[in-house]
């Protein structure tokens, strides 16, 4: 983690800022001009005060006379500089914000576009939490120094103006300034360097504390049913205490440097008074000038710290920018061809010698089978045999490492973008509903009438419960559909596929959370519906397998056998063991019980 302000980080950080400046030239220029106005006017306001002291206040006390002209000029000067300074402050803050927030929004849009463009295999390699923070926290951090940047530029203007003003006023007093101000800047830089890694660590721990809470509350049922509340609290407490200690470490550094940074300019003013008194006695300056310099010190002590803020944000910015850039630079997007499938209803499907691997471990080895138009094929196999991966290949969520999948004789990779989705629909094992209405979730951007949505829901046996929802089709289902039960979510997801009247329907154990009775109704409904489609269904239940014309039996990522249910039952032992497990169990159990009886009697 690049949390230290090294020169390499500095260079990179300035490079990042350069990108923003180039992108938002005009607005950034306005912010800098406004900040320059603020810087200049800060010095001018001290000068106005000194002028008023020398020309209006002191003469009145010393000589006892006042010219109203001088008094009004003083008033005008003071008010005028303050007004211009305020305009500068407002302009700087507003336009710096515009630059910062525009850049943030730009990064967020670009990153999300990449998420939508990159292939699913890329998503598999990156944890969800990381991708979400790339788009939120990292995009925020990358552009964070843009907020204090114009201010820092303004402060530089302010310092140069102040230096010139002081040199012209009195070189000796200027010398005090040249000692004190660089000292403040250096002290602040040391401060930020010490603080930065500690703050980064605290931030990191804050995220970890949050992650533990998230995971632990998500798994609340497991925690409760196993009675592990104390264990979880201990786990959380360990991290919470680390966070506490990290925050106290931050506090120590803050506690040390903040008072020092306040004391330093105060000491500066005192030195100015002492040195000024000597200069006054030697006649080099007048009292007004002394007041002016002392006042300048008071005004400058705070803004000068803005230089440190920019530097402090740079390492975080570089880290954020690098992470965002890594997403934007990610290649391996899915290439699309230009072909459209023949479009005859229903579709045909060929899987030809397909292999697929997650990282190093190959999960599918040379899988081949085909499904003639209008036929139903059941994919059967033990848990972990690669069925779900295979269904993903069939709709080109991922591309095979070797071999090809053909829809209507056309390699999926040759088809135009959207062509597969127009022909085929996959209902995955893991249901995902969008935080949208029931209608929005079923239609998913497709232009369909309410009647069509209801018809799809009816076929998915979901019309009943949707009709009973408070707002019917307009009911929002909540984040990931949390307001619905597992079985209800599955049926809405099924309706999403049905409403598209796909020519190829792929069901990946898509009714596992649905009651067997309801499941049967769904399957019959699908079979008897007027829309003829080719169907691939992942199943264990005999009811489902019975609907299939052919069975493909997968074992450890290979097609172990294929044929009708009866054929496989007769010749494939693995298949027989799997699908007749329940029947066999009964007889075996009887045998075991008989054994036990024997054991007892023996």
């Amino acid at each position, binding site marked *: 983690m690049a949390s230290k302000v090294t020169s390499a980080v500095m260079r990179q950080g300035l490079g990042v800022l350069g990108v923003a400046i180039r992108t938002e030239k005009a607005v950034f220029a306005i912010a800098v001009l406004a900040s320059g106005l603020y810087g200049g006017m800060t010095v001018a*306001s001290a000068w106005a005060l000194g002028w008023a*002291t020398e020309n*209006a206040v002191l003469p009145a006390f010393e000589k006892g006379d*006042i010219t109203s002209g001088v008094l009004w000029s003083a008033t005008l000067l*003071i008010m005028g500089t*303050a007004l211009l*300074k305020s305009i500068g*402050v*407002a302009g700087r803050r*507003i336009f710096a914000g515009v630059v910062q*927030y525009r850049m943030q929004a730009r990064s967020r*849009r670009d990153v*999300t576009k990449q998420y*939508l463009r990159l292939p699913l295999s890329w998503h598999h390699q990156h944890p969800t939490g990381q991708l979400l923070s790339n788009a*939120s926290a990292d995009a925020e951090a990358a552009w964070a120094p843009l907020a204090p940047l114009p201010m820092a530029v303004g402060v530089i203007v302010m310092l140069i103006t102040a230096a010139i003003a002081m040199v012209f006023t009195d070189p000796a007093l200027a010398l005090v300034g040249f000692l004190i101000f660089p000292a403040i800047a250096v002290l602040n830089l040391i401060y930020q360097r010490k603080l930065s890694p500690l703050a980064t660590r605290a931030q990191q721990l*804050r995220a970890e504390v*949050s992650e533990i*809470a998230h995971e*632990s*509350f*998500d798994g609340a*049922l*497991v*925690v*409760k049913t*196993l009675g*592990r509340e104390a264990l979880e*609290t201990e786990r*959380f*407490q360990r991290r*919470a205490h680390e966070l506490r*200690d990290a*925050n106290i470490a931050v*506090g120590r550094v803050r*506690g040390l440097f903040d*008072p020092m940074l*306040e004391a330093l300019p*105060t000491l500066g003013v*005192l030195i100015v008074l002492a040195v000024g*008194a000597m200069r006054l*006695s030697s006649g080099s300056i007048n*009292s007004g000038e002394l007041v002016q310099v002392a006042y300048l010190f008071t005004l400058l002590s705070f803004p000068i710290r803005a230089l440190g803020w920019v530097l402090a944000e740079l390492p975080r910015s570089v880290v954020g920018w690098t992470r965002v850039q890594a997403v934007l630079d990610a290649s391996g997007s899915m290439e699309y061809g230009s072909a459209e499938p023949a479009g005859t209803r229903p579709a045909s499907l060929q899987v030809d010698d397909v292999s697929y691997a997650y990282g190093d*471990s190959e999960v599918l080895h040379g899988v081949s089978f085909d499904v003639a138009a209008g036929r139903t094929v059941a994919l059967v196999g033990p848990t972990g045999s690669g069925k779900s991966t295979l269904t993903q290949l069939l*709709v080109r*969520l991922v591309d095979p490492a070797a071999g090809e999948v053909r829809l209507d004789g056309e390699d999926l990779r040759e088809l135009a973008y959207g062509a597969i989705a127009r022909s085929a629909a996959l209902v995955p094992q893991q249901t995902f509903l969008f935080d949208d209405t029931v209608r929005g979730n079923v239609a*998913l951007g497709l232009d369909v009438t309410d009647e069509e949505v209801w018809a799809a829901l009816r076929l998915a046996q979901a019309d009943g419960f949707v009709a009973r929802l408070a707002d019917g089709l307009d009911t929002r289902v909540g*984040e990931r559909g949390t307001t619905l039960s*597992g079985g209800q979510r599955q049926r809405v997801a099924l309706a*999403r596929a049905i409403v598209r009247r796909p020519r190829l329907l792929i069901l990946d154990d898509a009714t596992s*959370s649905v*009651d*067997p*009775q*309801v499941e*049967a109704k769904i399957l019959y409904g699908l079979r008897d519906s007027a829309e003829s489609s080719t169907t691939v269904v992942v199943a264990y239940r*005999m009811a489902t397998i*019975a609907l299939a014309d052919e069975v493909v039996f997968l074992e450890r990522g290979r097609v172990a056998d294929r044929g009708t249910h009866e054929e496989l039952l007769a010749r494939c032992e693995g298949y027989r063991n799997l699908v007749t*497990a329940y029947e066999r*169990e009964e007889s075996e159990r009887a045998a*075991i019980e008989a054994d036990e009886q024997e054991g007892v009697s023996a």
Partner: protein
Amino acid sequence: MALQGVERTALATVRRGLSLTPEFRNGLIGTMALAVVATVGKIIVPIAVQQTIDTGIKGGKPDLSYIFGAVAICAVAVILTALAGYLMNVRLYKSTESSLATLRVRGFRHVHDLSVLTQNTERRGALVSRVTNDVDQISTFMQWGGLMIIVALGQLLVATVLMFIYSWQLTLLVWICFIPLMIALPRFQRLLSRAYTIVRERTGDMLAAVSESVVGAAVIRAYAAEGRTAERVDTSVDANRSAQIRAQTIVGFVFPLTEIVAALAIAGIVLLGVQLGLSGGISAGKLVAFLFLVTLFVSPLQIATEVLNEAQNAVAGWRRILGVLDTPPDVADPGEKGAELPRGPISVKFEDVHFAYPGGEPVLQEVTVEIPPRSRVAIVGETGSGKTTFAKLLTRLMDPAAGRVTIDGHDLREIRFSSLRERIVMVPQDGFLFDGTLADNIRYGRPSATDAEISLALTELGLADWVDGLPAALDTPVGQRGESLSAGERQLVALARAYLADPDLLLLDEATSAVDPATEVRLARALEGVTRGRTAVSIAHRLSTAENADEVLVFDAGRLVQRGAHADLVREEGVYAGLHASWISAAHS
């Protein structure tokens, strides 16, 4: 049953919040005293300026020794106040961080102690932020905003006192200039707070839209819905940006107002001060000191809107975490007072048990049943018939509204959680896994288990081959929520975890619904643990489970309508016969 939270005023909320964390009060008086000393440091410069002008350079000829003496004394004072500032900060950070860590951990524990019912009515994210963001907000306020209120008030007070000593007329003038601003500040704060609220809402919308593109990656691709999501993301990102810029614009306009008012006060001081000086009402040094003292009014008022905003957030944060802590865990652990039951064959009784969700229809009525030790029980019924409620009452995830559930003659409510959870374990349908290795997750069932014991358990369950086939066997990481494994594999791990816990009664809530039949049969047999005398209760989704049970409990519309062996029930006229017929037709059509 939602979180309750007692209605309180802001002050009462803070007082109650602080009373929960004694660490904060320890040494608070010392910290406050140091804060006062640190604040006094702010008026050193105006006093030094006044002394230099009035006494040091009176009559044109500076009295250098006097000035040097004054400056030296002031310098010592500055260093002392800085030291006070350091000590105050360290003490403040220690006490606030310690107290907030306590609050965080208490809140976390309390969320786990709340009933499943309460947990489920709250959004997960909302619960998490009660122990994270809400506490952070309090922490920011205590270490910055709250401190600033003390410092700012102290600063205004000492400045005013000193001003009053110098000239009451000019003091009045300064206050007249600043009072309208002070009156207007709460109004600005409300404006700003509304703007920030909108920013927060828009940020929430944006994060939801962005997360859709990540979490829903597969569905989006399968249905070519990229355009729809991209549009949603663009709209929400832009709305968020506009809200941020709007809030920043309000800050941009409000922030410099103080400078303008200060300039007005300074001009007024010069105008009025000169008149006063002519009549001998004030010295030149005092007048100049006033110009410095006015700057002490600027920073407190400039940050006032932000401080007020933070104060409001902190009170809201306290309210939310108190909302958790004030909600009594309606399914409470009797703790020390509770009974500790010996392990061994378990006997369960439901005595006229009723249950209804708060404000809802009864979902379970008049359930009276006994589950003898060592029995295999299947629970069947249609969705919504009450079988899951029955399971939750049996595991005491909820308490009955009327009647009682006993094990070995003890009411569940009188049994220590540690003892109850050891004897009865439920495996829910969704096999939730923690982000860690396979071994970590299985060991969760019994933290003291050795690797050898875990391997033995897997062998007994017939899962050893499956584990060996994984890339890193037991050390295979399962990913967040176990998402690197398939749904069936997650269920296998969840089962192994419960098996390792080795309870006297194991309750399976469709815990193998995504597992292949051969594995399921193997697991069922191992889990029933016939030889050990374990009781096994299964919510059945397959005919075979019911067929193999010693006893089947049939639920319909919240009532236990039939019970008995499969063979007997199937011959009876009733709900079970109907269910059975539909199973058969589903299996053999």
